């Protein structure tokens, strides 16, 4: 069990005053079987005229606010205290054959049907024969689902170069597949597209990584900003996470903020403002492991 304090600061500086701003943010960490959000505070400057919280389709907590006072700088600072437990992981080789997780199968289980939205196309993730072909080597008939998904995760880590700046938030998977490099969001989309092209349910996860590794452990890629990875639905088990950027199954150093079909469902900050012209954006994420209380 590890406690984290996360501070995520998003700062917009505008060329001209902004008179009105409407924003919706996905910054509130989810509660999951292996994660508890103990406290969450959202500090917005200038102070919003209204701030509402609601739960979206995926169960994420969304904060919506309006700023009605003229400003040249908008600062959105979220502070979370999250307790992370080790994931309940099945033995990868003992999980059901991957075919059983396919949507639309005659014997498809209720849990697959309830999550079937994650097997369909979404704004940034199309299904295609090419993506299915890309996944196929790791998905021979009857291979246990978690073992296969882990193999895919590791192959993406091996064969694709992590290169910030090589893509944008709007980059399409085809281009990632072509240029063989990208950032965490691209790798997550790629894996999700490949899995969905096989008929499996896969979802996008937006979250954080521990910034500074504990002594003796390597620093993970993507720790200085928000991070993204994916999960696959395993019948009888539930969602199992995979991080293709680092080629691993997340353990206790990943903190989930929100889940969706792809990035467009859970952008950390989204807004429309009046005025402002150009803006400069800076983001800082600090994920600090809090000292564990001494155990007797």
């Amino acid at each position, binding site marked *: 069990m590890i406690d984290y304090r996360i501070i995520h600061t998003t700062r917009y500086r505008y060329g001209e005053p902004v008179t009105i701003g409407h924003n919706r943010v996905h910054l509130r960490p989810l509660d999951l079987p292996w994660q508890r959000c103990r406290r969450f505070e959202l500090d917005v400057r200038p102070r919003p005229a209204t701030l509402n919280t609601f739960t979206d389709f995926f169960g994420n907590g969304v904060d919506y606010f309006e700023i009605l006072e003229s400003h040249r700088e908008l600062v959105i600072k979220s502070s979370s205290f999250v307790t992370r437990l080790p994931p309940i992981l099945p033995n990868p080789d003992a999980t059901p054959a991957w075919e059983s997780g396919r949507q639309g199968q005659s014997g498809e289980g*209720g849990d697959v049907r309830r999550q079937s939205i994650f*097997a369909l196309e979404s704004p940034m993730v199309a299904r295609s024969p090419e993506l299915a072909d890309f996944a196929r080597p790791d998905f021979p008939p009857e291979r246990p689902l978690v073992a296969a998904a882990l193999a895919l995760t590791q192959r993406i880590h091996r064969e694709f170069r992590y290169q910030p700046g090589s893509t944008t938030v709007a*980059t399409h998977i085809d281009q990632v597949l072509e240029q063989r490099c990208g950032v965490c*969001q691209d790798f997550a989309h790629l894996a999700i597209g490949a899995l969905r092209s096989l008929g499996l349910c896969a979802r996008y996860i937006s979250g954080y990584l521990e910034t500074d590794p504990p002594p003796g452990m390597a620093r993970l890629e993507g720790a200085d900003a928000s*991070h993204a990875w994916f999960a696959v639905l395993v019948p009888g088990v539930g969602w199992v996470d995979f991080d293709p950027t680092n080629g691993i199954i997340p353990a206790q150093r990943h903190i989930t903020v929100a889940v969706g079909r792809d990035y467009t469902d859970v*952008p950390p900050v989204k807004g429309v403002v009046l005025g402002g*012209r150009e803006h400069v954006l800076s983001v800082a994420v600090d994920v600090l492991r809090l000292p564990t209380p001494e155990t007797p």
Partner: protein
Amino acid sequence: MAGEEVMQPGYREDFGNEGNLQPHWRKFFDFLYAGGPELPQRLEEDARRLLRESGATYNVRMGQVSRRHIWPLDPLPLIVAADAWERLAAGLIQRHRLLTLLLQDIYGPRTCIHEGVVPAEVIYSWSGYLLAAHGQVPGSTPPLPFYAADIGRDPSGHFLVLSDRTQAPSGHGYVLQNRRVMGRLYASTGQLTHIPPLLSFFRTMRSDLVSLTPFSKQEAHVVLLTPGATYETHYEHTLLAHFLGLTLAQGDDLAVRNGRLWLKTLNGLMPVEVVLRRVDEAWCDPLELRDDSLLGVVGLAQVARSGRLAMANALGSGVLENMALHAYLPHLAQHFLGTPLLLENPRTLWLGDPAQRAEALERWDELTILPLACNPAFPITGCATDTPIDRDKVLAAPQRFVARAPFIPSRAPCIRSGALCHAPVLLRAYLTSDGQHARVMPGGLARVAAPTTGPLAFSPNHGGVAKDVWIVATQPVLVDDTLISTPTLDPAPLVGVPSRVAENLFWIGRYAERAEGTIRLFREFMALDTEENSLSRHQRTLCRRLLLITLTHVTATYPGFTGKEGAYALDDPFAELASVLLNSERAGTLAFSLRAMSQAAFSVRDRLSTDTWEVLDGIVEALDALRGRLPHNLGGMFWETGPLLRGLTAFGGLTWENMNRDLGWRFLDLGRRLERSMFLAQILETTLAEPVEEGDEAAILERLLTINDSLTTFRMQFRTAMELPLVLEKLLQDDTDPRSMVFQLTLMESHAAAIPRGSEQNLYRTHLGRVVFETLSAVRLADPERLAAITPFSNRREQLIGLTGRLRKLLPLFSESASNSYFRHADPPHHLFRASRSPR
């Protein structure tokens, strides 16, 4: 009626399948056959004239431009027997109940998906399914107050639904328009006595709309959200808003502040509780829906979600328009209602389902393959009709298609080119509901297919023609007693003129006045040559040149007749004059001003009276006629501008006589006065700055007075020769002359005083007030004798130039100030997330 038509397939509305005249058509046929062979043609002509008069239009978009067309209406009704209609209505009510339950389930517990009644893909992959519609306050407002279905009669005479209209059912306004025209066509024939009137349905609709409000039903402010004047069915929106007593609003008339929706008016923000939505749902909110939309309101989805605003219909209701659902409706009826459907679809197979696909492949040639992307039957306008679809293309993405049992619509009598014939017909039926009680309109919008050989086309873009629907009762309809017995709710008045409306009215005033001034100058220029006068050749030339130069200045079509380039044009003015008058692509020309005026007028159509629309349409027609047969000489142009001038004068008179003296009117008049005073300042400066010989000057002064329509009164007031100081006094300072400068400025001052100033009490502390006061004082205090004086060294009238120069500087400030204080439309919204950094 030609004999071979009887052989064509499809149920015959008038003669049924047995070939016997149906009883409910008898009365109408008696009338038709008693009218003689000329009747069809007469009805057709009368209908067209009535439609033209009422300005009933729809827009056809071609690339960037959209053109208005007269709404096509067949003068023969589609007659339906009351008992058949009752069964149809019962089926419609059941279908509406089913669709409402389905909608609430889709955006709520999703049992239909989880229990496998409908494949997830049919719901989630359809473009009308909106994730943003989740999380609404559950069960707070009925999500589907309005519903319409496109219905046809199959060869056995049964009604079938071809498509459901749920996200923003449209066409109500056209139904009203059709009935209005039919009412006048058949007024004296006694045909309408057995037809139920539509009024009470629309009252119920308005009441249902009001009852949606999350707040007090006595204080519900309702707007009709329209995409704007260039949108194809804008006319219908203005008509419906007018009829229901709603304020017509575009996206940028509205704003979300403090978690509520507001209308931006000259008096400030006014709360809005209910939106009758005619903007397609995907375009309603650039924050949560399509981010490239300029038609929506930022934050609208959130206000609706929070329960502080009701929308008719709710966001997300487009999910029900998916034709793939038709394959599952029978199961869904069992799932939600436990009963079979009363009103069915033609049998439909969704090709995304392996079993249904297999069936479709077996019977491929007898089925109609339809892409889900286009919802056919008949959209009010647009949308292509069925075209043959390649089998391989379908099998590459089968989930995007349905296969449907072929549907042969019934045929009804109609009039085409003056002759009676039969053509395929469909009908749109309407329902309104407050969540408890549903009511079906006793009538509807029928559509006759275009006379083409290919696939049937019902949209007016493809030659389809509308028809009124008459439900013929066996007894005369006497009084609509529901009107008296049922209490209805009315929307609360939304006081205040939307800023956009004020801005458009202001520009209508300016453009109308500018156009009028341009024509007056041109006609006076022509009169110099064509009318008898006592001018010498030299004087004529002088006056002509001065008028042409003034024309360039007031229209700002430089260089025109000014400067070096202008010298040639002055010698041979035809080409440049033709351009200044008729080139609508060139800014400032007469044609440009009239186009701009007509566009501005169209977007505030709901604020102008029917008479005013007629005059405006007449002006546009006169302009089109003028441009169509471009006169080859100036004489021709002179005559052709007559109707334009008369139209503009009539418009001026109507706005003065018939418009409510609200703030909108003040802005219109403000624009007119501003333009007129700028015109006057300009013409005085151009013609009088440089002194000329006494005789020549008299000639110029006479032109000035004529253009200003003041010659006669001047002569009556001053029985003297043309003396400059007197003329200046008359043109600038005569309070009793409606074309004088002080007259314009005094009115402008009174308008400025009446416009809300926020917290500022004192008019003269506002920019607008100071500008108008300074201008008015300068004119009032000027001494005509001194204005007329010639400054020795420069040999110019420096005093006069000083005054007109000052006016020409101050008057534009007035426009700028009005624009800054009242029209200032903030920059288009700007997205923050587009450039935001991707997660790593």
